């Protein structure tokens, strides 16, 4: 049967109908989109069909950015903001992971804390600004607290979801080999929850960056958030956009770093 017969009259190729539904993403298009958008904005503001009230000229934003860099203030702003971000997010995320794991493991903790987290989640942190001053003072404390509070709830939700999703059959395996409770948590539950925790952290860190502005409403002299707020209150669009661009870059950097960590720590994934 594997030998070929003489070709019969009505032979035709089987039509191809597969393929598709697997979008790839060549890098250059992303770059091109940014270039096109920025050029449009530049052209529009130069030729006047975009009013200077609506959008600053991209080249002016770049200039502002260079001035900021040259004045040395960029680093002054960035360093305090980064410190706030790191301390606040580290605090919120580590407490969040710990709480999430406890919720994932203990019925009573779950029953008590899940409704509380659900109630805390939709509270806008900026509404509580005046209280944060009273609770944590106007120094770094209140800024750390605000960012920590904002990252805490999403981290908790992501973490206990991740613990819930750890393959129960692996846990049964651990029990069937008489592993201690603590061994099971340390060697099976935590590593198994790691992918979920890391992807939760992606969201938490984006929220932390967003909250930077709210945190720096509280008596901050330096910081990207304070810089943006001041630019906003003076309706200085160039500086506003320069600040926003910095936050945006910060967000992309954070997300890239987590991607790297995932690639390294979760190399065992299929």
């Amino acid at each position, binding site marked *: *049967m594997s030998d070929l017969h003489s070709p019969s009259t*009505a032979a035709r190729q*089987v039509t*191809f*109908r597969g393929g598709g539904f697997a979008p790839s993403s060549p890098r250059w298009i992303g770059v091109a989109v940014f270039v096109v958008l920025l050029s449009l904005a530049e052209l529009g503001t130069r030729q006047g069909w975009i009013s200077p009230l609506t959008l600053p000229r991209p080249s002016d934003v770049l200039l502002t950015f260079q001035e900021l860099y040259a004045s040395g203030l960029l680093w002054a702003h960035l360093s305090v903001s980064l410190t706030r971000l790191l301390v606040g997010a580290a605090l919120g995320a580590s407490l969040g992971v710990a709480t999430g794991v406890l919720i994932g493991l203990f019925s009573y903790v779950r029953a008590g804390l899940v409704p509380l987290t659900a109630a805390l989640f939709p509270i806008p942190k900026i509404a509580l600004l005046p209280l944060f001053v009273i609770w944590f003072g106007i120094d770094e404390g209140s800024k750390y607290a605000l960012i920590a509070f904002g990252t805490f709830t999403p981290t908790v939700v992501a973490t206990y979801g991740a613990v819930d999703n750890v393959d129960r059959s692996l846990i049964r395996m651990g029990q069937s080999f008489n592993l201690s409770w603590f061994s099971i948590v340390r060697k099976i539950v935590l590593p198994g929850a790691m992918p979920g925790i890391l992807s939760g952290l992606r969201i938490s860190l984006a929220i932390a960056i967003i909250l930077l502005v709210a945190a720096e409403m509280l008596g901050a002299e330096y910081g990207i958030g304070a810089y943006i707020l001041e630019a906003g209150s003076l309706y200085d669009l160039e500086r506003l956009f320069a600040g926003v661009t910095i936050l945006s870059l910060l967000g992309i950097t954070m997300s890239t770093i987590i991607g790297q960590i995932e690639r390294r720590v979760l190399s065992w994934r299929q």
Partner: protein
Amino acid sequence: MDIRLSGVSHSYDNFEVLRDISLEIPSGRIVCIVGPSGCGKSTLLRFLGGLEKPSRGEVLQIGAPPSDCLNPLTYIFQDFALLPWRSVRGNISLVLEDHGIRGARADGIIADVLARTKLSDFAKALPKQLSGGMKQRVAIARALAVNPAVMLMDEPLSALDSQTRELLMDDLVNLWTRTPFTAVYVTHNLAEAVRLGHSIVVMSRRPGEIREVVHLDKPLDQRQHGDPDLEEKQKYLWQLMREEARAADAELVHV
């Protein structure tokens, strides 16, 4: 309608999967393909169904399909591929809707294929309510609904437990005996191959080549569980494959 593969080879990037496969699938017969894991059986089947294109060689269909045939080359998948949000009935009507078959005409076809697969009582059930064997029978019913010229089956029974597998094999033999269909049946299971195949293509391990084609002349409905001559063929096939299988199983998966 026959199908012919001539000189088909394929590589993914530089990873050679199939090498120079030539094969004819004659109308009204079941051709089984066996071979060790990763030798390219599924890839070959995707070429036959037009879901993928080989790097080299041709896949030809010879002669026209019957006129009442809605989808000449029709798959039955290992994982059933049922839409979990549609009922049994909805899963079958899915493949009719695009041909404009609705209403009473669709009802007629659906009732017929459900009866042939003994599923008439379960038309309204959702996939999650069905056992594995029933799910695969729904997939078979769906394939029958489009009246295929050739059925392409990729390990259709391997997700089932062996008892259900036995039952479904009986069902397939019954279906074929009543109205013979053409099928290419990929399997890992030599018992299935000797039970259902008019001819059995044995492939070497990757890059897959055809090692031997074994013919079985005994009519399907006379083949029995534990027939000595079938056992003989099966033993012969197992000898052909044993070393290949052991080598394939001891290879690290490329990731």
